[in-house]
């Protein structure tokens, strides 16, 4: 008989052990899934998780894909700490890309060195504006931010689709639903020649650094306290309304920034699909990284690998593209299950003791 026995204190070891365990269980389940599909288990796992890292190009792609995940994940983790559940980062990412990309489109013949900074600012502001809607509705009418932010995602994605099919369509684009290419001055500089690694990496790292500092400051304390003990936060005198605004604006701003960086970087124009679900995957990144900045950085790399591995596996062993989503799902599922071990320990009773 297996029993869950509550622990007297949260296990600090399991706080970090649970994600590792979840990754291990994901590998096992993934391997079995490959086996059921008739693929050799070991080789398939190798193709998925190791092969992408065996080339310089693969590693550089990992970094390219991890940057937006880390950037968004950092922002979300700030809010999740305070129990502010911003599930609509995908929409804030998209709206940031629309606003920032819009500047590049309007000034498409600009060579000004201020174009890119203006786009980045517009992107962050766009993300914040999109997140301000759930923040306002939550603080003013107590509307659930999960639903509002999630539904706004579809609004933003459809808005982008409308723009690139209609008013912002490239006049020289043979009617393809895409905008003009951004001018040189509106493109993220590439850091390493021959790869797609761009300036956005720095923004992700800066975000990690700032989040680390916040964690040691009054703001981080407020976020943590509102999340852990809202009554105590009220008693301390911290305004819950302000925390909610801060959490949503920070999350939205970083997601918007990630959006504009993505369209000004690897993509280079506005197209109907500018994200393979970064905004949603970043939710897993935040939890897998234990809402800790360094953890988010590592988790961002792991989740980026599932994108790369999915692509590699698709090409090499002919499995459907859905395998990426499947692995991400496994990981979240196991992570949530393993988190039980933080508060409980497993007690296995055998034979006589079981009765």
């Amino acid at each position: 008989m297996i029993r869950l026995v509550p622990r007297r204190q949260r296990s600090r070891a399991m706080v970090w052990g649970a994600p590792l365990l979840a990754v291990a269980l994901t590998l096992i389940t993934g391997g079995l899934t490959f086996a059921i599909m008739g693929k050799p288990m070991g080789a398939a796992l190798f193709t998925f998780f190791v092969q992408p890292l065996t080339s310089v190009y693969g590693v550089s792609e990992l970094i390219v894909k991890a940057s937006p995940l880390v950037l968004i994940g950092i922002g979300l983790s700030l809010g999740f700490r305070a129990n502010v559940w911003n599930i609509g980062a995908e929409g804030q990412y998209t709206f940031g890309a629309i606003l920032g990309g819009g500047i590049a489109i309007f000034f498409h013949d600009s060579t000004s060195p201020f174009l890119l900074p203006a786009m980045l600012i517009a992107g962050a502001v766009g993300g914040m504006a999109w997140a301000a809607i759930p923040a306002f509705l939550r603080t003013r009418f107590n509307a659930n931010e999960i639903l509002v932010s999630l539904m706004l995602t579809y609004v933003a994605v459809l808005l982008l689709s409308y723009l690139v099919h209609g008013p912002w369509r490239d006049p020289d684009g043979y009617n393809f639903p895409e905008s003009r290419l951004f001018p040189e001055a509106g493109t993220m500089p590439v850091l390493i020649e021959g790869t797609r690694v761009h300036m956005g990496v720095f923004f992700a790292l800066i975000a990690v650094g700032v989040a680390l500092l916040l964690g040691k400051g009054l703001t981080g304390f407020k976020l943590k306290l509102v999340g852990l003990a809202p009554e105590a936060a009220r008693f301390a005198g911290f305004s819950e309304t302000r925390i909610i605004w801060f959490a949503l604006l920070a999350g939205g701003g970083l997601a918007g920034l990630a959006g504009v960086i993505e369209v000004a970087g690897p993509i280079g124009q506005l197209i109907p699909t500018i994200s393979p679900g970064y905004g949603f995957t970043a939710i897993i990144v935040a939890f897998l990284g234990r809402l800790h900045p360094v953890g988010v950085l590592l988790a961002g790399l792991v989740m980026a690998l599932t994108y790369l591995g999915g692509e590699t596996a698709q090409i090499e062993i002919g499995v459907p593209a859905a395998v990426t989503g499947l692995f991400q799902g496994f990981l979240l599922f196991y992570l949530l299950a393993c988190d039980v071990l933080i508060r409980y320990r497993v007690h296995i009773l055998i034979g006589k003791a079981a009765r």
Partner: protein
Amino acid sequence: MDEHNDKNKPDDGRRAGAPLLEARGLTKAFPGVIANDTVSFIIRPGEVHALLGENGAGKSTLVKMMYGLLRPDEGELFWQGRPVQMDKPSTARALGIGMVFQHLSLFEPLSVLENVALAVPGKWNPKALRKRIIEVSTAYGLPLEPDRIVQSMSVGERQRIEVVRCLLQDPQLLILDEPTSVLTPQEADQLFATLDKLSAEGRSILYISHKLHEVRRLCSGATVLREGRVVAHCDPREETPGSLAELMLGTRIAPPSRASTRRTTPRLRVFNVSATSSRAFGFDLKDISFTLHGGEILGIAGIAGNGQNELMKVLTGETKLDHEADAIRVDGAPVAHFGPIHRRLCGMAFVPEERNDHAAALNLALTDNTFLTGFSKLRLTRGGMIRSRRTLEHTKRVVDTYGVRTAGPRADAGSLSGGNLQKFVVGREIMQAPEVLIVAQPTWGVDAGAALAIRQALIDLAATGSAVLIISQDLDEIFAICDRIAVMSEGRLSPPVPVAQATTEEIGLLMGGVHAPTIPPEPEPEQREAAT
């Protein structure tokens, strides 16, 4: 009733026939602590037996093992001489053990009848059940209306539901955990009469309490626990409160001492405060006015849920009175429009009633909890960053000064026992040297040793010229340490009177909602200075 003179010799009880319940060598260990170490004792039929001990002495663990909520690692339980396995509460109930918990487990939106029905096995038969509830409640002097909704009832009335619920199952042994902590003196007397009746019928009662005079009034036998071990079996009627406390604590403790206070200048003035309660069935505050002087301790008595929480929120600033800044003044300065942070900077400090996740965040370290209320007054931040060394040093001082037993200043608040956490919370506020300290239920659920330390600390603070306000349901506490007393009932506050002129009966009537005070209100000569 002469079989009770068996001081320190539990086994002597056997000559008076088979014990109802016997515990032999019960041992229960949790990671890092042995909660019960070979505990043995006997409860005889018809006996009211006290279980005494500090918080953390292992009383709850012991009771949980007897009620089937925990299983002992070692040792055995005997029911009427036969060994029994208490593997779940239903086993205990089937044997005839009923328990009334300290924290009542009732469904608030349901009626009395429905709550009772949920706990009584068998088919849903409201007619028969209603009849039985009325029978039992009248027979034992526990008046109850079966169709009232629990939410609208006072804590004392709610407790009656739990007692009646137990009695419906005709228990041979009734376990009561700190039952009088929520009762007025009159209600407590009513409960004692019920318990006397039950005992006269031959039922046994296991009575867990910190209130030593109650144990002496009610119980004919007592088992004293200290650090998980039985340190004595005694007859509490032959002991003094002092000797009982000494057995519990292992050391002699002096009662709180205080020199007579000189009332000096008014420090806190509350003038005509009214506020709407945010909770359903909470009482709105109606024209609350009082003045608190430097050097004095004012006690606000009252049964829980009569507006004390609302008053506390208004005083801490969790409820701000935006347009009536003058309604609350500290040393003459209006503060009613400020939130808690600003009020603390004006010299106020607060200890709310609920220590868990209100006064202190359980999942955060003690250092973080020091920071929680002290960061502005003690300047624990610089440039938005937490000054962790300064916070740590201050936490250490609180821990050392108030003898908080903890693994260290970085331990989670949740790892402390209730009494130790309360010492920490009260000490944390006093160490900020407040001009005005407002404390709700300073010794709620706290063992005698910690309660004494806390009361002494409050007295010492008042002696330095600070003003102290205590909102407490514990009348003994108010009579022991306060200079004046006022009573809160249905959102109103009676005029404060000197404790020396008040009697328990009069205060009890005020608590029960009798609004015409039989005590002349004390003249307030400073009333006209309010504007200064």
